[in-house]
């Protein structure tokens, strides 16, 4: 099997063809053994691409989170406690924040916002409470997941304290009030006059770490 020089200039070829140009351009006639080892070489390169793309598919997971954190487009507020210090309160405008709750399918808890809505200035500290009750006859550990709509507002909600930062265990028949403290960043763009914060409660008893269950029994 022999190869002869390519007549077409590389500029005319789309990128896909470029990768193996070197081998396609070899000028001396090759033996079959050389040809086979060349094929193996090309195949190996392509296997690396496959492995790379498999890695990329898993890398998409953190990339997705990073992208959403930077742009705030999926309405996920930060899951870490913010520190409230030297925040300038912008008294020139008032923001309305609504609170809604829901439980995931199969989650039997009663879950409601004690405060349905709150009006505050950007930078001002707000405190709201949520009511939960476990009406079932067994202990359940819950996790609340927040979501803000419109999503961009999530970038400007800073929680100093939230029940959603940790697991919430309730024994059978128990009830509780769960507090949440937050302030709205004064940097919030002017076009936002109100937004909605939703909490969804999930039953995570089955998947939670055993350590938490122990802690719950002791409490």
């Amino acid at each position, binding site marked *: 099997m022999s190869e002869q020089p390519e007549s077409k200039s590389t500029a005319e070829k789309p990128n896909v063809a470029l990768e193996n140009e070197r081998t396609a351009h070899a000028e001396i006639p090759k033996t079959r053994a050389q040809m086979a080892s060349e094929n193996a070489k*090309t195949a190996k390169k392509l296997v690396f691409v496959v492995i790379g793309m498999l890695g*990329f598919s898993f890398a998409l997971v953190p990339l997705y989170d990073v992208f959403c954190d930077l742009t705030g487009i999926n309405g996920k507020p930060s899951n870490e406690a913010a520190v409230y210090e030297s925040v300038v309160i912008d008294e020139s405008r008032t923001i309305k924040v609504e609170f809604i709750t829901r439980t995931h399918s199969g989650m039997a808890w009663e879950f409601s916002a004690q405060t349905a809505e709150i009006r505050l200035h950007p930078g001002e500290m707000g405190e709201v409470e949520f009511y939960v009750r476990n009406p079932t006859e067994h202990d359940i550990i819950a996790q609340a997941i927040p979501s803000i709509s419109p999503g961009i507002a999530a970038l400007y909600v800073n929680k100093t304290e939230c029940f959603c930062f940790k697991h919430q265990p309730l024994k059978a028949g128990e009830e509780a009030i769960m507090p949440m403290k937050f302030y709205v960043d004064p940097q919030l763009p002017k076009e936002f006059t109100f937004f909605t914060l939703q909490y969804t409660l999930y039953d995570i008893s089955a998947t939670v770490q055993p350590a938490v269950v122990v802690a719950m029994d002791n409490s």
Partner: protein
Amino acid sequence: MSTETLNDAHDSPDGHDAHHEHHIPKGILRWLFTTNHKDIGTLYLWFAFIMFLIGGAMAMVIRAELFQPGLQIVDPHFFNQMTTVHGLIMVFGAVMPAFTGLANWMIPMMIGAPDMALPRMNNWSFYILPFAFIILLSSLFMDGGGPAFGWTFYAPLSTQYSGDSTALFVFSVHIMGISSIMGAINVVVTILNMRAPGMTYMKMPLFVWTWLITAFLLIAVMPVLAGAVTMVLTDKFFGTSFFDAAGGGDPVMFQHIFWFFGHPEVYIMILPAFGIISAIVPTFSRKRLFGYASMVYATASIALLSFIVWAHHMFTTGMPVAAEMFFMFATMLISVPTGVKVFNWVATMWRGSLTFEVPMMFAIAFIVLFTIGGLSGLMLAIIPADFQYHDTYFVVAHFHYVLVTGALFSIMAAVYYWLPKWTGKMFDITLAKWHFWCSLISVNVLFFPMHFVGLAGMPRRIPDYALQFADFNKWISIGGFAFGLSQLIFLALIIKACRKIGEPVSDQVWEGAEGLEWEIPSPAPYHTFSTPPLIK
């Protein structure tokens, strides 16, 4: 013989298959151990055809249930399994293996290579495929049934509301993916390294070009599909939370990862079709293909653009307007290179000496009907309109126009075009014309009214529907049964052709056919181009 030397040097240090050199082994062992590209191409094509009939039988179950409103034949859970497995089988079992089969048969003959570059891997990539589909199909008979979450296996449907057979689904998709990747690597290596002297890139037939680009798409996105199913597997069985909000994951992320694979996948299923049509139209127009270079660039641009349009499948998930606009315009941009192709085919026919042999009939049907599918795709790309069309039968109509009258018709056109070269005998033209006309009429009775019920609001993937859709659904089902039966004509024709019944054909077969594959004898000998041809 060149294949053997290649084998010995590359993947078979002991060289124990050297006996291929002297004769073609007989019986089942020939097919089991074959490393011959023509044999493997035949295996792929038969496998695809069997899968097409099985997937088609499932479609018949779906259409029988939807013949009239109400639940009458199957229960909803089984109905969902039918829609899911029908989709998986048609995509991964019928269309993709059929194209791989055509690639195996034709690419070495078109570029003057003695065989595929990696013949042993070729054998392996075919033979793992039946196992994948045995696993998938057997899951239908397990307690709790097979996968019922749609071929797109959206989380949390597949991670939280699915049965234990999800594990089998995941492993079968893994195997299908490995098979496709190996097939794609083989195609790329063959095209890059094995072209005959003088066969420069810009002299390659378009079928070779479109397959080269398709193979790169496969190598790029099949691993992403493997990643997605693996995440579903670990979410379901090993307590991870990739797609579970309660554990910090995000179900919408599933859709992003899936469609990052899924959109290039639809071009994987149509680019080789473009190559086939670009081979057939010039032959029966007795003209050179109009705009060869622009065809190559259009194919490459479609492939590149396919990576930046995935979220148009997810307009209703609540994306920011800016992102929706980006994906809308990027999607519409794809219609430019696609339009170039349709224009070039029509321009090739313009003032040509047209004759309407069976492959040409399928090719012309492809051009018209694929364009209808492309236009409904443009409608779906419009964000506000998509909110109405999303998850309705309009979407079903759209993707069946591009996949059935697009990809599938092109495969049938290809089979009719190259079958005489494979068998050395002309197929039964009367049967072929019956097959064409029955398919053409029934496929439109089947899919065209779906546009109307979809626009009127009938959702997809449901076993029952509101009364006002009854009349159209009756017609759709009748069209479906007719289309299914028409394929039995095709089966009869293929069996007849394989038994070598028919008039002998010349080497060129078709009067206007040009290319290396028409310069070798008919039927194509077991080994071709052991000495590379010189291309002027």
